């Protein structure tokens, strides 16, 4: 079909490498399908910013919108407005479940958290002290992952979560918080890096003279395959990474949007893109 008069817009949460991968996938799909493509990155994580962006896109009369939602509830109204205006809307990566969006494509975050929790339990042999290093305290996807982790650890009464720290997704802050954590808990067995800064931060800390001897003994699980996180795995600082499939999410988002606009997908269903646990063994072979 000739799609050259169609425009689809993809709206991530913020500018981070994860979404850059999404953009790559989405852009590739848009080129393949011959649709016009717009990538709109919000300047902050306030719900209102994404609402305004969708309003602006409605005013621009785009045909389809895929969005990774910062605040699920706040976009409900504007998504309805978009759907009423005849625009196809789906969510990816982070959902607004009660909105009028047609479908959700992405990781089920709580499920990913469960996987992470189980991996940790296995790595530390079912007992010990663990700590959680997260990003923004208000981010719903991170909170869902934490819920999953806690749920998984309920099965291990000997594992104790001794601390949880927010880092505002700032590497410097994450590093100093991790240092303090390790000093206050010298017998820590594991760290969960819930957000993308966790991996690089813990790797940096373990690299330092003071903490170098903990490397390997301390089990670390992180999210997202940032270059520094991968290096952390190679260097033995990080035990495993929960890798999502951002490229796939982006590609599927555009493909489903175009199908919906063209009336080829009357009954869309959610798609779980899942996570892969990447460790030293499969580091070179996983796909996103």
């Amino acid at each position, binding site marked *: 079909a000739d799609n050259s008069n169609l425009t689809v817009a993809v709206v991530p949460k913020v*500018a981070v490498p994860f979404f850059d991968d999404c953009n790559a996938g989405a852009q590739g799909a848009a080129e393949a399908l011959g649709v016009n493509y*717009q*990538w*709109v*990155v919000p*300047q*902050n*994580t*306030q*719900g*209102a910013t994404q*609402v*305004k*962006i969708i*309003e*602006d*896109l*409605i*005013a*621009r*009369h785009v045909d389809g919108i895929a969005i990774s939602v910062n*605040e*699920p*509830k*706040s976009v*409900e*109204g504007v998504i309805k407005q978009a759907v009423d205006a005849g625009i196809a809307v789906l969510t990816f990566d982070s959902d607004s479940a009660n909105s009028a969006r047609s479908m959700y494509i992405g990781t089920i975050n709580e499920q990913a958290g469960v996987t992470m929790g189980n991996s940790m339990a296995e790595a530390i042999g079912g007992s010990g002290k663990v700590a959680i290093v997260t990003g*923004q*305290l*208000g*981010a*719903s996807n*991170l*909170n869902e992952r934490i819920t999953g982790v806690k749920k998984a650890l309920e099965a291990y009464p000997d594992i104790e979560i001794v601390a949880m720290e*927010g880092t505002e997704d700032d590497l410097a802050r994450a590093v100093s918080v991790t240092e303090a954590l390790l000093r206050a808990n010298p017998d820590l067995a594991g760290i969960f890096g819930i957000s993308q800064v966790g991996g690089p931060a813990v790797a940096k800390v373990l690299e330092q003279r003071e903490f170098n001897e903990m490397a390997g003994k301390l089990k670390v699980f992180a999210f997202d395959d940032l270059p520094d996180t991968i290096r952390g795995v190679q260097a033995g600082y990080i035990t495993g990474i929960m890798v999502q499939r951002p490229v796939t999410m982006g590609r599927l988002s555009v493909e489903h949007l175009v199908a919906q606009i063209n009336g080829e997908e009357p009954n869309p269903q959610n798609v779980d893109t899942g996570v892969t646990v990447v460790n030293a063994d499969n580091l070179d072979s996983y796909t996103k």
Partner: protein
Amino acid sequence: MANSEAAQATPQRSFMSSIAQLHHVREVNVLVALLLVGALISLASPYFLTTNNLMGVFRAFSLTAIMSIGMVMVIITGGIDLSVGSAMGLSSLVTALAFEAGLSMAASISAGLGVGLVFGLSNGLLITAIGLPPFIATLGTLSIGRGLMYMITHGVPVTPDTPELFSFLGQGYIGPVPVPVVLMTLLMVVFAVIMGRTRFGRHVYATGGNEQAARLSGVKTDRVKLSVYVLSSVIASIAGIIGFSRYLSAEPASGFGSELDVIAAAAIGGASLSGGAGSVAGAVIGAALVGVIANGVVLLNVNTYAQQAITGGVILIAVSIDVLRNRYSGGNA
């Protein structure tokens, strides 16, 4: 301080002289810049000048604009209020919690406003009774407010059921005009009149212009300062309640970081951070300028990563034109 800033201390004068001096008045200059930017965008995009889009733009900047009304009064006294974002966020949260606890609409709204009052009194008393610098006092309450929001929500948004009538506040329309825009206009007019026509307004300008001289003339400068901080926080809590009504979800991080936007709106609209100068209308126009630019970059499909750089550049150009116009249009150079 720069002459150009001191130049428009008090924007009210008799009608004749105000016509004559029109081109000296900062907010008129910024209005001109705003119209210019608007004209440029509408040339490039047919969607800009549609009622829907314009009303959307207005609604989008209305909350910042509302907060900037309170902020500009604080700034005119020579102070600053970094806690507006926290006051806004915590008010919307407390309103949501009140609804969740089954309180009536009136009670819930009052609870939200009460939060603003507490913020304002804390800021005001820290500054006047203890003598903390405004920057530090409001930075402290900013942190405490944020912390309280996290402690209450543990990062989970609060989304209670609310009566239909309540959502009108944030989502309704009066004719084609969104209710938040109506409220913004109302607040702007009320406070422009207060600042321009009343004794209180005059005292605010005098306090910022020369606090010592004002106090020695009998102005109760501490009371004036307390009042503007209370007003600023309460107005921020109004914004918080409207915001909550708009999305019916109180986010754990809502309002974070908005202090810079709000102060910027006031400053772009002509408020001098050294006190004594500024106007309510200017602050709203300043918020509008930023809002229109943000809308424009999306409508024009500008590279999204460049949006922030463009916004910064346009603001610099707009205010520079204003400053240079002022300098060369005789008089106050």
